[in-house]
Structures are given as C-alpha cells and as structure tokens.
C-alpha cells in the first residue's frame, strides 16, 4: 500500500496567533484581570507568587490546520472515504502525538486516517516560520470491519498513536483502533535510479541479444515522495476495546491494553502476545472495575502502570512474575468524605495516565482534576490541580448528557514542569508545577484573530460575572478538548478541537 503526497484534505495556509508560555520556569502568565487565579494546589505557596503579569506577545506564524473546508474535494478524490452522509464525523481528531524529536506530529481521526505533519525546515530569511507544521503524509490506517462471529461492527477510529524512536532514515509508528494494532513505516524517496539498459521504458526485460553494453544506473533526484507502508498487523488478541498502547524502552516490545486485559507484544511477532494483566472476573456479574489506561516506564523496561475506573493506579514489575495480576505498588487517595456523592466513583475514574519524562512521577487525569503522584508515595498524590471544579455542582446534568464519561487526556511539557489538559468550551488548562500558576486558554477560530494574542480565559464561579468572564451556564459542552500534545523539548503544543488541530508556540522559539 503506497500513498504519496500531497494530502488532500488539510490546509496549512492559515495563520494563528500565539500565546506565551512561561519562558523557562519563571515566566509570568497572563491574566486579563490581573487578579490571582484560584489556588488549586494544596502545597503552600506564598501570596506573592500569585501575582500574574501580562506580557505582550510578538506575533509569530503558526498554522491552523482545518479540515472543514475540503470535505467536498475529499469526497470526490478519496476513494477510501466511506459513502457517509456526515463526512465531518470521520474528521474528528481522536489522537495527537509528537515523535521523539518533535519534528513530526501525527494525528488520528475517527475515519481511521493518520495524518503526519512535519515541522517547517529552518531557513535564515524566514525566522518567523519556525513553528509551522505542514502536511507530510496521510494514509488510511484502519478500515471499518465487521466481526461476523459476534455480529459486531468494528470502528475504524484511531484510538492511539505511538511513535517508535527513530533508528534510521525511516519513521515507524504504531496506530490502533478498538481491536487491531498496526506498525507503519513512513519513509521518503527523493531519488530514483536511472539509466538501466536491461529493461525498456515500460519495464519489460530486453532481449539479451540486443544488449551490447552494460550501463551503470545513476540516482537522479525526483519530487519527494513519502510512502506509508503497513509493516506489521497485530490482530485478534483483544476481546474488549483497546484504550492504550505503549512502546517499551527496550524498543523491542510494546503493550496494548483493553478494558480488562493487557498484552505484551514483540514487534517482530504478530501471531502471539503475552497476556500480562487480566482482571476479567470468572463471573462477569462481579465486574465492577475496568482498566482505563496503561503505560510503560520511560526508562525501566520491566515496569509499567495501569489505571482503573475506580481511580486507582497499579504499578507492576514484570520481573516479579510473568502474569502481573499482582501489583508492586498501588496508588490510591482516600476519598474525601465531604465531597462524597453518587457520582464520586464516576468522577474519580482515571481517563489518562502518563509517566513524567524523568520517570519519577505519574500524572493521572480524572473528570475534575489532574494529579501528580510520586512513585515513592502511594497513599496520596503530591499535587492536585482542579481543571474545572465549577462543574462539581453540575454533575447530574453531565451524567444525564453523558459528558461525565468523557475521557480527557493529559500531557507533560519537556521538562516535566508544566502539565496541560483539556476542558469544555474549547478550553484547555496549563498548570505550572513550580510557580503553582495556572492558565485557561481557548482553541477556537472565532476568538483568535491572526497574529493576535491568545487571551487567557476565565470562567465565572459564583458572584458577579466580570467582563471577559464566561459563566458556567454558557459553556459549550459539545466543544471539548480531549487530546493535546506537547513538543518533547520546546514550547510548542498541539491541541485537537473536534476536527481542528491548533498548534501554538511560545514566542522565544
């Protein structure tokens, strides 16, 4: 399967303003009112550190990649698109992931496509374009399938993408839908051999009798072609929905986790995997807990964690036994009795778990908070950040409309000092772990004019609504930021807002 550039359905021509990230650790965060943001962390910090200072932003070019405009073109041009009445549904981005250098950014969508963006090459006369990403390759990773035994449709939606560390000129990534993981090779070709005289123009072998000399072919440049090739297909190992994949630091294995089981694979072997966790009760009537996310330790290839719908995290050591049903560490925070309600369990269900780059901490996201755990302390998180605590009194409605089951993800910045996660109304939040400052930003086309400052947003919680504040009741719950990514070493972030991908960059880049 070869698919070449250019991508048909993504435009990179639009401009987008930037916001400013803290420059290093001490950079001030913007606040429209100049008032301190609500203190969300229990660790004490001095009042003085909460003074937020506005800073002007230098306009820098950033791409806003919108898939909205080109639907019609795609329908005509892309035969792989299903004949579906609402094509936009397939365009909804379902995962975003930078590769290990940050040069490439991959997105997966509900239509089973993977789109890879490449960072604009640096050039001396175009300094302002350094943060821009352009479409590099796009391919159909998964197709809708039908399980005839169970009489079930298998969606093509890409649940997760994970890059493998680059070993040679080609790039490799894993993509998964509910059931099947695929290993893709993405490689470039910009030269082709020319000057063979053993074959004619159409590629047929010439009659050897007519060949009197042997010519050595030469490589001639040609238009760059990017090919995506499926190299491995890891299928038939998951009965439930795969929610996570994670590449091990040994670079030879990876794991895939579904609601009840975690499997360990070798990249070279597709016809068998090892089941390392299985929490399926013998009697499904006793099922009260599911696995929600899992990840390998970034440096210790024997260690991984998985989170559960009961708000707990288990750390397992594969050296202990082949089947890691028994955890090595168990992270759980005692329930706060003053906040107990019928929704306590639902909102404590962990939607994402991420090791810090250092491997010392784990970050978990539940419905209302982000927590940072120290691997050496199991009884409570060391930091808790409120993402949108104003929703606490709205849980009934959010249960009614099913929003309470939304699975928000969370990411670390390159130095593990800032964490980012999404919210509703196209808002996303950042928390500086050192200064304890936090900011709410909005990824939307309406509110961000070209080269303008991306203003911090504020949600009004009780009392009088100030100018520039938005009241809880007017938040749009259909616009949710579930997936974000942070460049591994720079202050560049990618934010997926339904079918739009925003890339924001710090001005110092």
């Amino acid at each position: 399967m070869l698919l070449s550039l250019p991508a048909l359905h993504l435009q990179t021509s639009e401009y987008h303003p930037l916001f400013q990230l803290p420059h290093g650790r001490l950079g001030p965060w913007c606040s429209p009112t100049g008032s301190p943001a609500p203190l969300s962390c229990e660790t004490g910090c001095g009042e003085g550190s909460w003074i937020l200072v506005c800073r002007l932003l230098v306009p820098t070019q950033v791409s806003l990649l919108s898939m909205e405009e080109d639907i019609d073109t795609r329908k005509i041009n892309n035969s792989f698109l299903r004949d579906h009445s609402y094509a936009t549904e397939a365009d909804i981005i379902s995962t975003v992931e930078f590769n290990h250098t940050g040069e490439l950014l991959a997105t997966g969508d509900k239509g089973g496509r993977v789109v890879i963006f490449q960072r604009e090459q640096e050039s001396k006369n175009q300094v302002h374009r350094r943060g821009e990403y352009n479409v590099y390759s796009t391919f159909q990773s998964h197709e809708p399938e039908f399980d005839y035994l169970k009489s079930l449709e298998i969606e093509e939606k890409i649940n997760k993408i994970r890059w493998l560390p680059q070993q040679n000129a080609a790039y490799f990534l894993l993509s998964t839908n509910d059931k099947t993981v695929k290993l893709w090779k993405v490689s470039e070709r910009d030269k082709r051999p020319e000057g063979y005289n053993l074959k004619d123009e159409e590629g047929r072998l010439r009659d050897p009798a007519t060949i009197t000399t042997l010519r050595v072919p030469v490589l001639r440049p040609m238009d760059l072609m990017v090919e995506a090739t499926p190299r491995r297909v890891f299928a038939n190992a998951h009965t439930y929905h795969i929610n996570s994949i994670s590449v091990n630091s040994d670079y030879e294995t990876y794991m895939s986790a579904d609601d009840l089981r975690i499997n360990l694979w070798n990249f070279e072997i597709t016809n068998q995997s090892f089941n390392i966790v299985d929490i399926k009760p013998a009697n499904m009537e006793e099922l009260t807990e599911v696995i929600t996310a899992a990840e390998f330790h970034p440096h210790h290839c024997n260690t991984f964690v998985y989170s559960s719908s009961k708000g707990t995290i288990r750390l397992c050591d594969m050296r202990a036994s082949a089947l890691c049903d028994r955890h090595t560490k168990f992270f759980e925070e005692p329930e706060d009795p003053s906040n107990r309600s019928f929704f306590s369990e639902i909102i404590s269900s962990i939607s994402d778990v991420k090791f810090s780059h250092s491997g010392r901490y784990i970050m978990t996201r539940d419905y209302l908070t982000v927590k940072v755990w120290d691997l050496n302390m199991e009884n409570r998180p060391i930091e808790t950040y409120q993402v949108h605590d104003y929703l606490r009194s709205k849980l009934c409605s959010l249960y009614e409309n099913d929003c309470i089951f939304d699975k928000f993800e969370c990411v670390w910045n390159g130095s593990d000092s800032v964490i980012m996660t999404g919210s509703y109304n196209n808002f996303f939040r950042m928390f500086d772990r050192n200064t304890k400052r936090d900011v709410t930003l909005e990824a939307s086309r309406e509110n961000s004019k070209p080269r303008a400052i991306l203003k911090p947003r504020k949600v009004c919680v009780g009392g009088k609504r100030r100018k520039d504040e938005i009241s809880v009741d007017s938040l749009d719950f259909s616009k949710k930021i579930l997936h974000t990514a942070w460049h591994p070493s720079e202050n560049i972030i990618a934010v997926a807002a339904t079918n739009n991908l925003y890339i924001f960059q710090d001005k110092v880049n």
Partner: protein
Amino acid sequence: MTRMMFARGLKRKCTEDEEAAPSYSRQRQSLLDMSLVKLQLCHALAEPSLCRSVLIANTVRQIQEEMTQDGAWRGAAPQTTGRAPLDRLVSTDLLCRSVRDGAGDGPAAPAPRGLQSSIWEGDGPLEDKGSFQKSLDQILETLESNTPLSVDELFSDVDSSYCSLDAVLTGVVGGAQSGQDGLEALAAMAAPAPSTSCKSDLGELDHVVGILVET
C-alpha cells in the same frame, strides 16, 4: 436555599412538596431511573463502552444499597403506572453536592413508581432487592455476551449510535421539564451539537419512552 433545606432533612408532606421542590429521595429515584434507562440503552448498542456501563451499574448498586438501608427500596415497587418516570426526571443537583447524613431525610416518602419493573421484561412488579439484583446481573451478563435481549428489539428502530443515545436521554429530560432553572438550561444546552442528523423525532422518542414505562 430551599433545596438544601430539604437535603438537610426537613420533615415534609410528600403530597405538597413533590411538585414544588424535589426531595432528596425523589431525586435519588430519578437518578436511579435515569441510570437504568442508560444501562438499558447501553446494551441496546452494538458494542457499548464497558467502562461506561460498569460505572453506571456501580452507581445503580450504590443507590440501591442506600435505598435498602433507608427502607425506601421496598416502597418503591408497587405503584407502577403510566408515564411517571418522565415527570420525575427533574433536576437532581442535590445529589451532586455532598453526602446526606443518614438521619437527614428520614425514611423517604414512598418513592414514586419504579421504572424497573417495566424495564426488566416479564419480571413483574419489583418486590425486593433480590429480583432487582437479578435484573442488574442480567444486564451485566448481557454486556459480556452481547446477546440481544428481547428488549433490544424494541430499540431496533433507534439508530444505535452514541449520538442517538444521548439525544434520547437528553430528549427525555428536556421534554419533561417545564420549569427551567439554570441547571436544566445547562443540560439542554449541553446536548450534542452535531445532532441535526440524530435528533430523534419526538414521536419516535415518545414511542421508546412509552415502551420503557409500559407495564
């Protein structure tokens, strides 16, 4: 706030208050009903999210446990009539707040008619915890086996997508509420935007709800 006062357990006469301000037990009942509808719709879907189903089932268990302790459970069963559940899907923000102290509400007024007996086909009026447990287990079992129950057929004309599930649920609520407060407005507003294609027409919705509550 009046609601908070009820939450703290003012003695009240159920006849007057039922319509004016929903009591804790009433809200709890409506939450239970809502959860049961969700579970039911869940397994009408081709492949429900297991995580969501488990969380809802745990919520149902929790409510049931509390109601059993209250003695409210037994009262909940007998009077199953008409379209009551519709009227009771009211704002239940009391439940979001905090634990109610056990003594607070007192034994709940005979909680209105239960939806359960109609959902669990052929189970008849719910008599005790046992048969409820059985029903719940049945649902969980179905989650695993994906074998359609007969009730599924009732939903067969409903497009099995997340969207329509949501539309049905929010539709049930929206249609039933006349007194708009902030919370309801929120719920209404929060209905998914891309719903032009999946707005169930009201007739169909009524049909579905009718089946659900029919005895």
